[in-house]
Each structure stands twice: as C-alpha cells, then as structure tokens.
C-alpha cells in the first residue's frame, strides 16, 4: 500500500510534469510549423491556457512581495516603516481597482503617483551615466580608444549639433550604427538564438527539468 502511495507521489511530482511538458511542448511545436485544423484548435486553446496560467504566476509573484513586506512589518525588521507605506498604497490601489483598472481612483494614483515616481527614477540615470562617462571612459588602451571614439561619434551624430559640425558626422554615425554595430549584434542574436533552440530542445526532450524542485529531480 505504501509502495503504491509512494509511486503515486513520485508520479505526481516528477513523471506527470515531465510527460506534460514533453507532450504539450511537442504539440505546440507542431502547431508552430504546420497548419492543420485540429492541431490549430488545440494549439490555440493551449495558448490561451498559457496566458491564464502566466497570469496566475504573476499574481503569485505580486502577492509574494506583499507578504514579504507584511512579514517585515509584523516582525519589526529593518525598514519596516517604509514597508507600511508600500503595503498601504498597494492595498489602496487594489481596493480602488475592484471596479476595474480604468476606475477614477486607480487612474488618479497611476497618473500622479506611479508615473512621476517611475519616470523620475529612470531619469536619474542620466546623471549617473554622465559621471560614469567622466570617470570611466579613460583612453587607457587602443581598445578603450575604439570604444570611446564610437560612443562620442554616436552621441554627437544623433543630435542636430552633429550636422552643424559637418555633414560627415551624421553619415559616420549612420555607418557605425548600420555596419559594425549591426554586425556585432547580429552575431549576438544568432548566438542567442542557437542557445535558445538548444535549451528548448533539452526541455522538450526531458533532459532539463526546471519545473521540478531539487528534491524531486534527484529521485
């Protein structure tokens, strides 16, 4: 009896997930490349299911943030006062959003609190990147010279001042962006695509099982 129970447990933990990943993945792969009515229908349904399950995953992550900060408040850990602000505003938004994301309260908070905060945070980067450029872009070697020269040409060439300095400046900037930079990124894209294909094949064939925890995968 116990052995059956154990087998069922192992099956639920490891074998069923693996079978599911391999079967459904193979079906989606067929759907991607072939056009057949039944496969299309099944594939479409699985796509919708994926969107729904990912939504649940997002919910899990978001609620996890709230629980972490709640725990910090309850245990009075470091910075718990800030956590109160975080949790309160999150709850206010969630409650105000019960009618929907276009309700007045949610849009007001988004437009006048979240938007300015996020925009300001990212605009800070301009200052930091300027000081980093001052301190870091020192021409210590030939390689550094290539890097700094390219950055300077792109910076000057992207703005109208570059054209004022000479017609060749925007043309040079265009050439840099269209030829060497494109070549480098193209190489990166091809490499990343190869890696993605390899990893995907490993998951589909069951060699990689990222969906099981450590404990389950060693059985």
């Amino acid at each position, binding site marked *: 009896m116990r052995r059956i129970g154990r087998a069922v447990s192992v099956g*639920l933990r*490891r074998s069923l997930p*693996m079978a599911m*990943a391999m079967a*459904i*993945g193979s079906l*989606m*792969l067929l759907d*991607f490349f072939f056009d057949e009515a039944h496969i299309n229908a099944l594939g479409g349904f699985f796509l919708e*299911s994926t969107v729904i*399950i990912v*939504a*649940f*995953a997002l*919910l899990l992550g978001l609620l996890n943030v709230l*629980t972490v900060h709640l725990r910090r408040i309850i245990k009075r850990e470091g*910075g718990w006062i*800030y*956590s109160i602000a*975080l949790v309160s505003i999150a709850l206010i*938004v*969630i409650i105000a959003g019960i009618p929907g994301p276009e309700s007045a309260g949610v849009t007001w908070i988004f437009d*006048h*609190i979240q938007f*300015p*905060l996020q925009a*300001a*945070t990212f*605009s*800070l980067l*301009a*200052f930091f990147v300027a000081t980093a*450029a001052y301190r870091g872009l020192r021409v210590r070697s030939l*390689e550094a010279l*290539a*890097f700094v*020269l*390219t*950055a300077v*040409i*792109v*910076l000057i060439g992207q703005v109208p001042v570059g054209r004022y300095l000479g017609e060749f400046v925007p043309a040079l900037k265009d050439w*840099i962006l269209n*030829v*060497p*930079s*494109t*070549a*480098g990124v193209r*190489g990166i*894209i*091809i490499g990343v*695509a190869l890696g*993605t*294909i390899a990893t*995907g094949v490993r998951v*589909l064939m069951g060699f990689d099982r990222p*969906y*099981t*925890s450590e404990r389950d995968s060693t059985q």
Partner: protein
Amino acid sequence: MSEVFAVWIAAILTLMVYSYLLADNPLYRLAQHLFVGSSVGYAVVVVVHNVLRPWLFAPLLEDATANWPYFLPLLLGLLLLTKARGSSAWLGNSSLAFLFGVGAALAIGGALLGSFLPQIQASWVSVLPGSAGGGPAAANNILLALGTIGTLSYFYFTMGVRKGPGSGFVRVSSTVGRWVLLITFGAIFGNRVMAYVSLLIERIYFLLGDWLGLVG
C-alpha cells in the same frame, strides 16, 4: 483645484526622487517604496481585470458546460498558487511543466523562424556592386558579413581551437570579432546615454512646464 493639487503631488514626488543626487536619504527611500507598492497594486488590478476576467472567468461564467476545457487552466493556475508554501510546492510542478513545455516550443520555433534563419539570410546578401546597388553598399555588405562571422567566432572560439587546421583563421576572425564588439558596445553606450537624457528632458519639461509654468 484638484488639478493643481495633483500636479503638486507629482512634482513633490519627483523632487523626492531627485534628492538621491545629494545623498541616500529617507525621502528617497519612501518614494521608492511608494513606487513599488503602487506598481504592485496596479499590476494586480490589471492582471485580474485584463487577463483573468476576459480570458478565464468570462467563458466559465457564461457557459460552464460548453466551455468546460477552461477548467484545466483554472486548475493548473490554482495549483501554481501552492508554490507559495514550500511543503505543498510540488503540487505546482505540473503547472510549471505546462508553462515550460509551451514556452520551450514557442521559443524554439520563434528563435528558428524569427531570428536565426532570417539573420543568416540577411548576411547572405549580394556582395556584387551590381545587385547590391552600388559600390559602397556592396562594401558594406562584405563588412557586415565579415563582422558577423568575426563576432560569432569570438564568442564560440575563445576557448579551445588553438592548434590544428584553420586555427590561424579562427584567431584572425576572433580578433576581428573583438574589435567589432568594441564598436558595438560603444554604440550601445552612446544610445543608452541618449535615452536617459531624453527621459531627463521629459521630466524637466514637466517640472518647468506643468508645475512651474515657465514654459508653454
């Protein structure tokens, strides 16, 4: 009246974030926590109303018997929520497996059809001045192809292939790839600076225009 109030709130929050330039201070940390809190809350609202309601609840509430297949994603989604607790986390393995299976398949297909093959095709363009549309264009095509090969050999052959046939070619193309990547990173850096400056300008427009009214 409420408009002015709203603008002032937004301006004060913006300045609280900019106070970080002087030093890390409690106002900045408060602003950061408010930002995280409101974005978490907003994301929850949007996910529930924009995704779960129309894609899952609507079909099930409309006609549960006809739309019975939708119980599968509902079940898998609820099982996924068990991942919050370590002891019951294994229940969510199937949901994750579903996600990984679909994700892997789409990633393979997409990478192959959307990135790999088209980009390889793109390098396979004409190097003849006639069909490329002029001498400079043909030269650029050649440089593009050489640069791409150089970059690939730099990434894939930094280890190994020191001896044996063709190793000289690999070493040359790795060096070419290294210089191409240096220029690429320089271009990426320049573009990044441009992006951040644009964001700063937008915020300054808000502060000077909407808030202080100094610009129209």
